[in-house]
């Protein structure tokens, strides 16, 4: 990637004896919306802090727009951060918060008069009328927008966002996701954000790096991460929980049947029904697989119903069926009932 705005080269960081980031190499392109995704403690926030300059790597290099920023303190780096709980200065007004960074060296190239720049920024995030409010007079969404404006006004080469939407309630979060995405397209600045929410990562980002135990498990476009997870960890984190030897199937890709499906049924009826059986069958029937089992639980989820099916060999499969009210509606089946689970072989994702 020749147009990388940010390059991490074998970056390592430990706190005392605990490794937090273990050899991360990564390239992020100019103008990209990039997500660092992983469970808490996976090192994603440390990685963000290494880029921001709040931490210094023990080993490896952080290259921002072609320049190694080793030892450059946070206040001299051309990046800005939107903090998890916004970190708005409580003693300053919205306008003063937004204008905070305008007087420092690294923002010299900012065009225009500070007052008009602040006004412009507040218009961009739709906070025109609130310039004189104090942060504690704002709603969560408004605080979020002030934090964005405060960072974006400095035209950073990279904007870092630490769990930007975690502090908002569900409905507001959905709205802010759309807003954030639109904002990023409009300003054209590279956004790198940290999240533990895979759905948020998929919704917002162009590309995602999934992290685990201080390492990157997989980097790729959102569809790629979702559809083609390469490791068991990524597949699991993306909700593809039906693991077989060497491959995984997403719950939404599986179908439930009350009777042995035609064609497959005959082959699967005799003998043991199980996963090894399923694999053997998949060689017989190139497009489909079938496993017989009993319903262990069902959970109504509104648009879908989540089923847990215990296969004959003891393996627990998860199937998500849409509640579309079709004649073959499976919602009538009880727990303990006998069912057949099928899937298309094309949906088997091979794992490393």
């Amino acid at each position, binding site marked *: 990637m020749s147009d990388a705005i940010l390059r991490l080269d074998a970056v390592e960081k430990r706190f005392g004896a605990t490794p937090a980031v273990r050899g991360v190499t990564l390239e992020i392109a100019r103008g990209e919306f990039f997500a660092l995704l992983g469970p808490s403690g996976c090192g994603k926030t440390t990685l963000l802090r290494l880029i921001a300059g709040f931490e210094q790597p023990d080993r490896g290099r952080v290259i921002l727009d072609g320049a190694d920023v080793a030892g450059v303190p946070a206040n*001299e780096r051309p990046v800005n951060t939107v903090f998890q709980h916004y970190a708005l200065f409580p003693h300053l007004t919205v306008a003063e918060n937004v204008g905070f960074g305008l007087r420092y060296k690294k923002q010299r190239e900012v065009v225009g008069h500070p007052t008009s720049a602040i006004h412009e920024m507040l218009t961009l995030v739709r906070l025109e009328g609130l310039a004189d409010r104090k942060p504690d007079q704002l709603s969560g969404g408004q605080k979020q927008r002030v934090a964005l404006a405060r960072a974006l006004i400095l035209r950073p080469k990279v904007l870092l966002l630490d769990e930007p939407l975690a502090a908002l309630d569900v409905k507001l979060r959905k709205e802010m996701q759309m807003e954030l995405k639109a904002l990023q397209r409009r300003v054209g600045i590279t956004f790198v954000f940290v999240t533990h929410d895979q759905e948020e990562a998929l919704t917002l980002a162009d590309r995602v790096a999934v992290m685990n135990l201080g390492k990157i498990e997989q980097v790729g476009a959102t569809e790629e991460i979702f559809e083609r997870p390469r490791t068991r960890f990524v597949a699991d984190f993306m909700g593809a929980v039906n693991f077989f030897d060497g491959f995984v199937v997403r719950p939404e890709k599986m179908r439930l049947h009350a009777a042995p499906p035609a064609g497959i049924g005959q082959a699967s009826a005799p003998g043991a029904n199980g996963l090894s059986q399923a694999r053997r069958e998949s060689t017989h029937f190139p497009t489909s697989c079938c496993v017989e089992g009993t319903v262990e639980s069902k959970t109504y989820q509104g648009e879908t119903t989540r089923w847990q099916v215990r296969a004959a060999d003891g393996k627990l499969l998860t199937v998500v069926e849409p509640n579309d009210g079709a004649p073959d509606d499976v919602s009538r089946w009880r727990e303990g009932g006998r069912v057949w689970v099928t899937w298309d072989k094309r949906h088997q994702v091979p794992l490393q």
Partner: protein
Amino acid sequence: MNTERGMRNAERGTAALRWFSWLVYAFLYAPIAVLVVFSFNSERQTAVWRGFTLDWYRVLFRDAAIGNAVANSVIVAAAATVIATVIGTMAGLAMARHEVPGKRATRSLLYLPVIVPEIVVGAALVSLFGFLAMRLSLTTVILAHVAFSISYVALVVRARLACFDRSLEEAAMDLGATRWQTFSRVTLPLIAPGVMAGALLVFTLSIDDYIITSFVAGPGATTLPLQIYWMVKTGITPEINAVSTLLLAVTIVLIAAAQRLQVARRSTVFSDRGPGS
């Protein structure tokens, strides 16, 4: 280059802060240390070390005036502590819990003794005793000490109750405890540390007080601070160092004891969580 200098500056800043803090600690403790060390110096006139001696302590223990002053101080402090702690705790409870008539005025009244300069309090009290034609004695000293220390107890207890979960008391009542049982088995144990802290504060304030006592102490009611003051004014001698050292030792032991009490209490709270672990 430039940036590495920045990092080093930050570290240097922290080091400077640390050194400065140690200097301030030295400033706080050097005078105390000097007193203690020179209470064992055999040289009488100057502050030059001439050798170790316990003579000044021996002189001290033979000094009847000092013995008398210590006895007076202990009587006053003990009496003032008991009276002020009981009345102050009651007031603190009332202020934190109930609709007290004239709550705002009462709060101002409680702050007054903390705010008004001691010298004014002493002068005012001696005016009162003069007005009432009361003879100055140990009793007037005790009254004065109670007057200026009730507020401290009330404020400490009230602060303790302010961060106290009211639902604990409601739970006790819900479980069938009467009002009195709730108070004695739930409220009192929970505010006990606050009451202890208040009592300790009264004791140390009382045993240290010079200014107010100097106004209201009659003949024969000389407390230890009055005695020390008199000794200091009549000429600095190593005996003063010795008696100062003893007084310091007693306060330090008291604070340490209070600290131990707090720690012990905290550990019983933790052990209440259950056996094992």
